[in-house]
C-alpha cells in the first residue's frame, strides 16, 4: 500500500498518505476529512484522532467542523442511503410524514444507521425534483409523489 507506513492496516495507511500530501497546505482540514470519509465510510474518533495528530489541529476543532457539515458523519453509513427531501415544496406536500414513517419502520433517527448496516436516514435539502414532491432518494433511485403508506413497500424492495 504505502512506502512509508508499515502499520499493516490499509485504511490507516491510506489516510496517513492523504495527511502527508496535505500537511503544509492552509485549509487542509476539510479536504482531508472528505478523503477520510471516502476511505472509512465515516469519521469515528480513531480517524479524527489520526487527523488531529497528523495536521496538528485539536480534536475539539476537528469535531466542531465534522458536526457543522451534514456531509460528514461520525456514524457508520448504511448500504442504502435514504435521503428524504425537506425542501420547501416537499415539506408542504407532507415530507415530514414520510420521514416519520421511515424512522418508524427502521426504528432509527435521522443521521443513524440500522444495526444490520443496511439503511441510513438523512434529511436533505431540495434535490431539484420539486415537480415530484414529496421526493425520497435511495442511493441513485428516485421516488416521487409519495404518501406515508408507500414507505413500507419501498423498504421491502431492499430487504431481500
Amino acid at each position, binding site marked *: 500500500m504505502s512506502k512509508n507506513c508499515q502499520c499493516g492496516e490499509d485504511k490507516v495507511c491510506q489516510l496517513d498518505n492523504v495527511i502527508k500530501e496535505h500537511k503544509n497546505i492552509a485549509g487542509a482540514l476539510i479536504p482531508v476529512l472528505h478523503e477520510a470519509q471516502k476511505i472509512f465510510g465515516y469519521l469515528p474518533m480513531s480517524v479524527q484522532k489520526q487527523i488531529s495528530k497528523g495536521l496538528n489541529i485539536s*480534536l475539539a476543532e476537528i469535531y466542531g467542523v465534522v458536526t*457543522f457539515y451534514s456531509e460528514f458523519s461520525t456514524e457508520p453509513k448504511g448500504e442504502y442511503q435514504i435521503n428524504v427531501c425537506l425542501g420547501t415544496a416537499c415539506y408542504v406536500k407532507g415530507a415530514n410524514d414520510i420521514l416519520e414513517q421511515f424512522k418508524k419502520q427502521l426504528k432509527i433517527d435521522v443521521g443513524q444507521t440500522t444495526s444490520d448496516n443496511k439503511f441510513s436516514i438523512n434529511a436533505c435539502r431540495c434535490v431539484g425534483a420539486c415537480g415530484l414532491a414529496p421526493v425520497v432518494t435511495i442511493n441513485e433511485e428516485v421516488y416521487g409523489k409519495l404518501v406515508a403508506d408507500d414507505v413500507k413497500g419501498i423498504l421491502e424492495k431492499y430487504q431481500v
Partner: protein
Amino acid sequence: MGKVNITIDGIDMKVPEDYSVLEAAREVGVDIPTLCYLKDINEIGACRMCLVEIKQARGLQASCVYPVSEGLDIITNSESIRKARKATLELILSNHDRSCLTCNRNNSCELQALSDRLNVRELRYEGEKTLYPLDLKSHSIVRDNNKCILCRRCISMCKNIQTVSVIDTTERGFYSNISSPFDLSLNDVPCISCGQCINVCPVNALREKDDTELVWDAINDKSKHVVVQTAPATRVAIGEEFGLPIGTRCTKNMVGALRRIGFDKVFDTDTGADLTIMEEGTELLHRLNNGGKLPMITSCSPGWVTFCEYNFPEFLDNLSTCKSPMQMFGAVLKTYYAKKTNINPADIIVVAVMPCIAKKAESKRPEMSVNGLADVDHVITTRELAKMIKEAGIDFHTISSDHYDDPMGDASGAGVIFGATGGVMEAAIRTVYEIVTKKPLDNLDIISVRGIKGIKEANVQIGDFTLKAAVASGTGNARKLLEMVKSGEKDYHFIEIMACPGGCVNGGGQPIQSSAVRSKYDLREERAKAIYAEDVKLSVRKSHENKLVQKLYKEFLGEPGGHKSHELLHTHYIDREKYPISQ
C-alpha cells in the same frame, strides 16, 4: 503610532489608528454595550450587541471589530440601533435558562446586567428551547450549556491563550453548542482544570464544583478537628467579592472570618510554600551537583502538571518531584501536627482555600495521600469562601484577626509571593543563594522575574555559578517556552511554570470580574502589587528563616530531601494519553 480623526455622536476626536470603534467610543465616555467582547482575548463581533451606525458603511456594524480610519463618522445611539440591540438580546434570552434567582452568578452575570441596562422588561419571543444535560463528572468544573449564550470567550481562552483546546463550537444553527469532542465530559478530555474558562464566562455556563456543603458538614461534625489553610493569592483577591477595590489586602479579615465560620484552626499555606522551597531548592542543588535532569521545572501548579502530563510527557522527568505547597502542608498537618496535638489523623479534616479549581482535582489524585488518608480533604475556591462568609452573616469589612493560629501559622514573605508569576523562582533564589554562598543576599527583590510578561528570563549570579532561569505563566506561554527548550534554542537550569496567566493571583478560583472591569484594569497586575506589598511587611522574607520550617525539620522531617520528606512531600507523574479510544 499614527492618529486618525473621527466623529462619534458628533464629537470630533483624534485616536490611535489601531483602535476599534468600541475603544474609541469608550475613550469619550460613550459606553457601547457588549456581551461577547473581552479585551485582547475575544474580539470576534459574534453577539451583535455593540452595533453602531457608520456613515461610510451599509447596515449596522459591530463596533468591537470595526477599525477606525480617517474621517469615520459614527452614531452610537439611534432608534434602529436601540431596536436591533434589544431584539438581539431578547432572542438570546428566549433560549436561556432564566432561573436567575437560584443561579450561581446571580448579581455577577453580564447577561443579567445587560438585560437591566437595555431595559428589557418583557420577552416578545417565547420559542423552542434547547435542553442539555449538566456535565457534573469533573472534580473541578461544572458545565451547564442551558446557560450558555455562545459568546465563545471560553473557546478563545482554552484554545488561543492556554492552548489546551478541549472545547469548541459543535453542531450548527439553533443546535450550535460549546462542547468537547464526541460530547465527552470535561473529565474525560485533556482539560487541565485551570478554570480560566470560568473566569471569562459572562454567565453561569461554566462554574467550579461547589464543595461548600461538604465543608459545612465537616464543621458541624463535632467528632472532627477541622483545620483550614489559605493560599497566598486568596488574601489579595477575596475583598473583591465584598466590593473592595482590586488588589486590596484582606489577610486579617479573611483569617477572622474563617475563625468565625467555625474552623478549629486557621493555618497558612504559605508555610507549605516555605517547605516547598526547602525541598525544591535542595532538589535543584542535587540535580545541579550530580548531573541530574535539567532544566528542573516547578510542580506547584496542578493545572500545569496536568498540562505537562498530556502535552509534554518527555518533560515529566524534568518536573520537580515536590508536591505542591497545599499538598505538602496537608501531609504535614496529618502527621507532624496530629502527633504534636495528639489528635488521630483520621479525625482531622483539612480544608484548603485556593485561588484555583485544579486544586480540587489535585487533592483527589490517589498519590496525594499518606497512610491511606488524603493530604487535603476539601478544596474550596476564593469565591466559594466568600459565599460561606456571606451565608454565615459575617461582616467581612469589620471582622479582623491579627494572626494565623499556632503552631503552624507564621510564614515568610517568600511563601506569600508564590501567588504571583515569578514568585516561586524569586523565593527559591533567595534561599538557594544563601545556602550556596553562605552569605546574606543584599537585595531580596529579584525584579527580573516579576511582572506579567508571559515568558521571563534571568541570569542569577550565585557565587561563581550563573543560574539560568526562566519563568512562564499561562500554558500557552509554557508551550512556547518548552518548544524552545526542546529545539535547543534555549537552555536553562530552572524553570517556573504556572498554568494561569499571571500566576495564582489570576487563578480559575478567583473572583470573577466583568469584561468592562477587565478592560480597565489588569487583574494580574493589581493583585500582584498587593502580594509584593504583603511580602515587604513581613519580618521574615526567606523560606529557610521560617522558624516553624526549621523546627519541623529538626523535630520531624530530618533533612530536606531526606527519607521522611520523600515519603510525605514528594510525588510522581503519569504519562497521560489524550482521548483514549477505550472511552
